[in-house]
């Protein structure tokens, strides 16, 4: 199960040149600044635009120039969510939702209408016309409409960027539920770091029409050789599960692959899967285990690599914590004083941990 896309396109000064092998499950974020070719790539995969190349989605060839094969958009089993909801204004929410579903043979429908209505919380909107829906409601209907075609892949082009912050917060939980409950791979184009950190399992980083990195999110963010910043700062994202709750101190324990972290109790139930983001600037490195410190989260690990930061005073250190990479930002002087080198056992002191989603 994978999506293989190879394209070469020169449009004036803009050149898109990619050879991607994307995961056939989970959410793959296509991340990059505006003008990097994210939307172009998505439109090529959808067949809305055309460029020389090769495209294979979960074993089905959608474009093969050597065989002069190009499947038109309406024959590709995909769902597409545009930046603006783009509901058909002349159809009610129900008829919008049914539009694509009715065009899929009954035997090929794998997505249940009621399930989608529940998942997206749009059951009460069915008889409304698009003009009477809020921006967030429209986008949820548009997502449902795309999903009801039982796509092999869901393409989402900055689906939240036309919404204000409150609407974004309204939709993000629904997107997480899609991710957790449906087995449809999602390609999620975005330039918003918080969305990527929260939703993505895999990431493709585009810059000026080229893929500068691709792979699992945690690994890719922990690479030191790439200036990949979700936002202003380097940092990693870990998947964890809420374990124990410490009612006395209002803390919960989040268990991840390499250890545990104590975080502020925000009321999440135990057993719930969460994402944790740790910025490199909030992590410091010590050679010994300091008991007498205000820092709650101390993790043992092994230095994996050291690299220069953009400022000459700083360095990034990648530390392997039970298989999970965590990146720390230290001054180069500290790195030299401590004599940090790959293979060295160290203790990480984590000052701040952000629970996302």
């Amino acid at each position, binding site marked *: 199960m994978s999506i293989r896309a190879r394209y070469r396109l020169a449009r004036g000064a803009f050149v898109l040149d990619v050879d991607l092998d994307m995961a056939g499950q989970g959410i793959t974020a296509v991340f990059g600044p505006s003008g990097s070719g994210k939307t172009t790539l998505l439109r090529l995969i*959808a*067949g*809305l635009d055309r460029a020389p190349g090769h495209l294979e989605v979960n074993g089905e060839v959608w474009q093969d120039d050597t065989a002069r094969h190009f499947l*038109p*958009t*309406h*024959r590709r089993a*995909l*769902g*597409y969510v*545009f930046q*603006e909801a*783009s509901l*058909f*204004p*002349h159809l009610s929410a129900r008829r919008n939702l049914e*539009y*694509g579903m009715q*065009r*899929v043979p009954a035997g090929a429908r794998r997505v249940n209408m009621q399930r989608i209505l529940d998942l997206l919380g749009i059951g009460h909107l069915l008889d409304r016309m698009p003009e009477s829906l809020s921006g967030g409601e429209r986008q949820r209907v548009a997502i449902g*409409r*795309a999903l009801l*075609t039982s796509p092999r892949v869901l393409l989402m082009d900055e689906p939240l960027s036309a919404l204000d912050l409150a609407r974004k917060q309204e939709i993000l939980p629904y997107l997480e539920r899609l991710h957790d409950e449906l087995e449809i791979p999602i390609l999620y184009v975005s330039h918003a770091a918080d969305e990527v950190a929260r939703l993505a399992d895999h990431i493709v980083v585009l810059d000026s029409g080229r893929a500068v990195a691709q792979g699992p999110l945690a690994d890719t963010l922990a690479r030191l050789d790439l200036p990949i910043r979700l936002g202003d700062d380097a940092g990693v994202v870990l998947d964890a599960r809420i374990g124990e709750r410490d009612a006395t101190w209002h803390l919960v324990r989040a268990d991840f692959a390499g250890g545990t972290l104590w975080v502020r109790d925000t009321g999440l139930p135990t057993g719930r899967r969460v994402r944790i983001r740790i910025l490199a600037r909030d992590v410091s490195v010590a050679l010994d285990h300091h008991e007498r410190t205000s820092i709650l989260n101390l993790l043992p690990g092994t230095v994996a690599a050291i690299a220069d930061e953009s400022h000459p005073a700083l360095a990034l250190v990648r530390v392997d914590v039970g298989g999970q990479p965590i990146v720390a930002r230290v001054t180069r002087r500290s790195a030299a004083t401590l004599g940090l080198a790959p293979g060295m056992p160290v203790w990480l002191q984590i000052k701040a941990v952000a629970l996302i989603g």
Partner: protein
Amino acid sequence: MTPEDLLAVWLTLKLAGTTTLILLILATPLAWWLARTRSLWKGPVAALVNLPLVLPPTVLGFYLLLVMGPHGPVGRLTESLGLGRLPFTFWGLVVGSVLFSLPFAVLPIQNAFAAMGERPMEVAATLRAGFRDRFFSVAVPLARPGFLTAIVLAFAHTVGEFGVVLMLGGNIPGETQVVSVAIYNHVEAMDYGAAHLLAGGMVAFSFMVLLSLNLLARRRQT
């Protein structure tokens, strides 16, 4: 109203109705092409379609008479097909009216197609609708106001036509004598009372048409 006048009214409505129907079938693909194409032919084709807006009807009628006459290419074709000659027949008038009212049907539909942008059709394609499917399920309903305007304008413009009819059809009662020609006849015969009846009817009709267009436009805004 004399039976002859009633016949003229009926003939006018029949001509306008037939013309409008044919125009819808003809103008829709033409309007789509003009709204979407990037071809170099767009300019010349658009100019040709819009020619009747600026040409005197007599010029159009004159050339149609020549082309459809016994020595014209279309005339020879219709004769060899056993259809006879078109000038001075109802169907000759239909051909003339269709060409004469073409821009009034094409322009509103073309504008409606252009205004809706590429997005709705792209969305429909991602929802598995092939071209014909999405054209009729998305493009046509979204362009509905344009179609309504085109129908009203094409019908009304055909009703109000005089020059092309006179050049091409003459004045045969029951075959080519439409209201505008009948009014001309009454005035020539100094029968102002009969002329008033038809002319007043035309004024009322035209007023209703413009009023309904206005209402259509207002409904579109809300």
